Each structure stands twice: as C-alpha cells, then as structure tokens.
C-alpha cells in the first residue's frame, strides 16, 4: 500500500490552511496545548471511524438520504467521544465544553465523507480520515504550542519559561490567550503555506 498518497492533508491539501475548514474550533481550543491535542485526537477519531463506517456501507446508502445517514453516523461518534471524555478526561472535557459537540458540524468530517468515503473502499477511507485528522491536528498543535508558550509560559501545564526570566522583567503576552491571537497565528500559517507554493 502506498501510504504517501494520503500525506496531502499534512501539507498542500491541509484542511485548515488550504481548504480553510474547521477554523472555528482551531481558534477556540488552542489557548493551551492539552485541550488542543485532545481536540485534535477527537476529530481524528471521529473522521477516521466516520469514513470507515460510511465507506463500508456506501453501496447500501440511498443517495437521496445520504447526508442524513452521514450526520447520524457523525453525531453518534461525536457523542460517544464526548461521553468518554467526560468519564476519563473530565478536566479537558470541561475546557473543550461545547466544542466537542460542535465536531458534528466540523466541515472537514462531512467533506471527507462526501468527497472520499462515499466512493472509495473502507481501508483507504480510514487512512484518508486519519490523515485529514492529522492535518487538522498539526495546525492545532502548532498554534496551541505557540499560544501556551508565549501566553502562559507553560507547555502542557508545565512551567517552561524559568522564573528567573520573570524576575528580569519578562512578561507573558496577554494577547496570546485570547482568540484573536489564534486568528493571527493561523493567518500567518496560511500565508507561509501559500508562499511555499
């Protein structure tokens, strides 16, 4: 199996930077690395399994109601993820709050179902979902790292910038913890992506 053909979403087909999908949640949950990572993981899981499920029954789905079937599958997976988070990652699930539920409306997932899973066999669909999740996650993790490092001086809640820096007059950037900072960062990343080719 040629795995390279699935690498598009990591670079020149990136769902956030090139297709501009899922930007809303990318702005909302990236103030810290941990929620950004859990969000990325949740979207990856939902995208992969939604793709796998829809692809396995793609020949049985009547085209007239395919969007409804896709939504039912996505909604089921998202609620499952939400329930699991509430049970095992309670702190993070509180941080993510409504944004887990909003994965249902994340255009990346529905986009991949329509564009790929409806017309391709299950295993390639699973890979496609996986790598689109990775592509989304990559952006979230980069933005989350920069925002948490500059905004709070921590990474994954561990103090990274030493206290001596603060004593010398270093200050956390207050803008970084606010949503506009994410917009600026994603904007710069889109700029770099475009400039590359």
């Amino acid at each position, binding site marked *: 199996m040629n795995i390279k053909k699935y690498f598009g979403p990591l670079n020149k087909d990136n769902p956030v930077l090139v297709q501009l999908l899922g930007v809303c949640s990318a702005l*909302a949950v990236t103030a810290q690395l941990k929620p950004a990572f859990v969000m990325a993981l949740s979207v990856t899981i939902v995208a992969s399994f939604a793709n796998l499920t829809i692809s396995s029954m793609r*020949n*049985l*789905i*009547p*085209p*007239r*109601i395919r969007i*409804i*079937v896709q939504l*039912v*599958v996505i*909604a*089921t997976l998202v*609620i*499952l993820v939400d*329930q*699991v988070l*509430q*049970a*095992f990652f*309670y702190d993070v699930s509180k941080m993510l*709050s*409504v944004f887990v539920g909003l994965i249902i409306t994340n255009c990346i997932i529905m986009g991949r179902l329509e564009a790929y899973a409806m017309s391709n066999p299950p295993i390639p669909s699973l890979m496609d979902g996986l790598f689109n999740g990775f592509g989304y996650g990559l952006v979230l993790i980069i933005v989350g790292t920069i925002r948490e490092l500059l905004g709070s001086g921590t990474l994954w809640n561990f103090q990274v910038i030493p206290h001596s820096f603060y004593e010398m007059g270093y200050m956390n950037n207050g803008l970084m913890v*606010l*949503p506009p900072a994410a917009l600026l960062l994603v904007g710069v990343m889109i700029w770099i992506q475009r400039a590359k080719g």
Partner: protein
Amino acid sequence: MKFSNRYIFIFITIIVVICAAILTLASVGLQPIQNANREREKMTQILKASGYSDIQDVIPFFKKVSEEITLKGEKNDLLVYQVKTKDGQPCFVMPVRGKGLWGPIWGYIAVKQDGKTINGAVFDHKSETPGLGAEINTDKFMSQFEGKLLFDENGDFTSIRVVKGGVLNSNIDPSMGVDAISGGTITSQGLEKMLKNSLEPYISFLKELQTKSVIQK
C-alpha cells in the same frame, strides 16, 4: 442503483436504532464514572473555598476534614459543609446557585467562624462567554472575595456587591464589594443576585455563629 421508498425507510430506521442502542449503552455504562468525576469536582471546589488547593487524593482528604451539616430552613433543609481549615479553625461552606447570561452559574462560599468574613469563594459556570462572563471561575476574580464581609457594622445582611467600574471608584465600602468583570455585566449581575438569594436563607445560621464567636471571645 435505484432505491425504493420502502428500502429508504427500512434502511434509515435500522441505522437510527443501531446508533441509539450504541449511545444508550455508552451513556448507561459511563454514568457511574461521570458522576464520580462530578462529585470529586464538587469536593475540590469546597476544599478550594476553604483554602486548600492542589490536593491530590481529594476524596479521602475531603472526608477527613469536612462534615456535612443539615439545617432546618424555612422552606427546605439547608446544607452546610463544616471544613477544618489549615489553621485548625472550622469554616462553613455554603453552596450558591444562580443564573448567568447563557446558563446556570454556581459556586461555594466559605465563611469563617465569626459568621461574617468570607474565607474563600469558588464559582463555576456552564456556558458563559469565554474571556468575558466566563472569567468568574478565574483565581483573579474569585480571590477578590477573601476577607470580604457579608454583614455591615449594624449586623444587617448586605451580601457582597459586584460593582461595575470597580469597587474603589464607587461609594461602596471596599470590604463589602468586589470588582465586576468588564464585558461581563449580565454575568456579574447574575452573580450578585445569586449570592444574595442563595445566602439569605442562611442568615439566621450565620447570626448564630456571630453570637457564638462573640461569647467565645
């Protein structure tokens, strides 16, 4: 391939039933863990209001230092948690509940043994606006409540005022009010109302504490 209406109805029914079954199983199966998480969070908040933060084993610690007291109220029974603080004095934690801008807000107010000084306060919310009303659960906002007084010099219950524009810029005594959140006016007002309404039933209990502490002195 052409699908008949009959096929469409049967197909979607099967899909929906399968999904519903999966979700029901997940919900019922995970419920006990989720409830335990909520219970633990409640204990953490009560402990935080009493001055303990960063406790690792919350449940045994909570059982060790706290005691649940039920008071006979006018309408309903009232719940108070008596928690032994770090300096050995008991403090009394009362739950408060109210309405923010988008949904419920709640919290715990710990009052010192003298029955009028606030030891600490913890607030949380379901869905207030991030960066605005949601700031009520930040340490910056909550720590303002430490040492504030619920009663004035005449012994009348005044609750705590949440003052727009800053308590220092108003004619309210700085020991009876805190600064509201800029951009979170409705949440701030809701919080003030919540404190007043939720603490009112406790007035007789708090006054009792006040007389007791005077006698002890």
